[in-house]
């Protein structure tokens, strides 16, 4: 174990079905749209977002841990792809406004 000082880095991993793979959940969402009188939405893909903190000496080594976790556990490379993004706040969802909106950083990005 290294004694190098560590900081906490927070990330989000977004996992989505690969293009071309049938996504029955996305299809179910699309099929519900007429009930909401929404007709302009298509190509819905349902995935999963995992947020986590990593203690590491620097951002690249923290990101390397997340990449390994994402490829070996959080996604199945046969059927899913993923992206890793740095997250500023403890959570990208705020609770003070009902938890429905993104952080300013994410909304801007």
């Amino acid at each position, binding site marked *: 174990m290294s004694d190098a000082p560590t900081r906490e880095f927070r990330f989000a991993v977004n996992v989505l079905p690969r293009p071309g*793979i*049938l996504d*029955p*959940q996305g299809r179910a969402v699309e099929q519900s749209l007429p009930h909401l009188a929404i007709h302009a939405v298509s190509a819905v893909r349902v995935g999963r977002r995992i947020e986590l903190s990593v203690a590491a000496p620097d951002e690249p080594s923290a990101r390397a841990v997340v990449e390994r976790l994402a490829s070996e*556990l*959080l996604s*199945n490379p*046969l*059927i899913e792809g993923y992206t890793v993004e740095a997250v500023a706040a403890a959570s990208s969802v705020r609770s003070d406004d009902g938890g429905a909106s993104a952080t300013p950083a994410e909304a801007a990005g």
Partner: protein
Amino acid sequence: MTRIGVVVFPGSNCDRDTLHAISLAGADPVALWHESPDLGGVAAVVLPGGFAYGDYLRAGVIARFSPVMRSVADFAAAGGLVLGICNGFQVLAEAGLVPGALLRNRSLRFVSREVSILPERLDTPFTRALPIRRPLRMPVAHGEGCFFADAAQLDELERAGQVLFRYVDAEGRPAGDPDHPANPNGSLRGIAGVVNGRGNVAGLMPHPERAAEAVLGSDDGMWLIRSLVESAAASAAASAATSAAGPR
């Protein structure tokens, strides 16, 4: 007597039926706890159905990293016989011990009903006891059983004879179309079970252990269990002969 292990994960729920079916087939069933890497010298391992570790994240993925699975992977790499049933198939697929992936059922519904599957080959350790190639009736019960591999992988599986079972209709015709009524989950090319390239690790979604006695409505599943027991007995005898003949 041939000893056959059945792994018990937290959330396994077909382990007892599987142990029972193995003893009906004349072997000595051994429960293997997921936290122990010790396979107890068994001649074959079965990963039973259920919801290992709650199936959180993706069915089978957490189980894949359990201590027992490291031993199962080593056992398989050494040529040991491994059969994954339903959730056990999902664990094997997540571990990369059999090809493909099991997606959410195309209907999004959990399906629990009887299906017919046709073995593609009778020359495998998992089908060898079957006298003729005919449809076998047994139940499925799963939410994530839609077999997926990309088109090139599917072609390669077919070419290499790695498709072990396909869903078929009552007349034995393949339910290759994902929307075919006899295809319970939308599996591509109607694939219900596959075997690895070496032929010693197989997985299938239907439950042979739930069709192991006539009183259950079908005993077709016993052909698979009996095949596994025969194959395990043969491999145990072979390895005993090797170690007896060896220098030691």
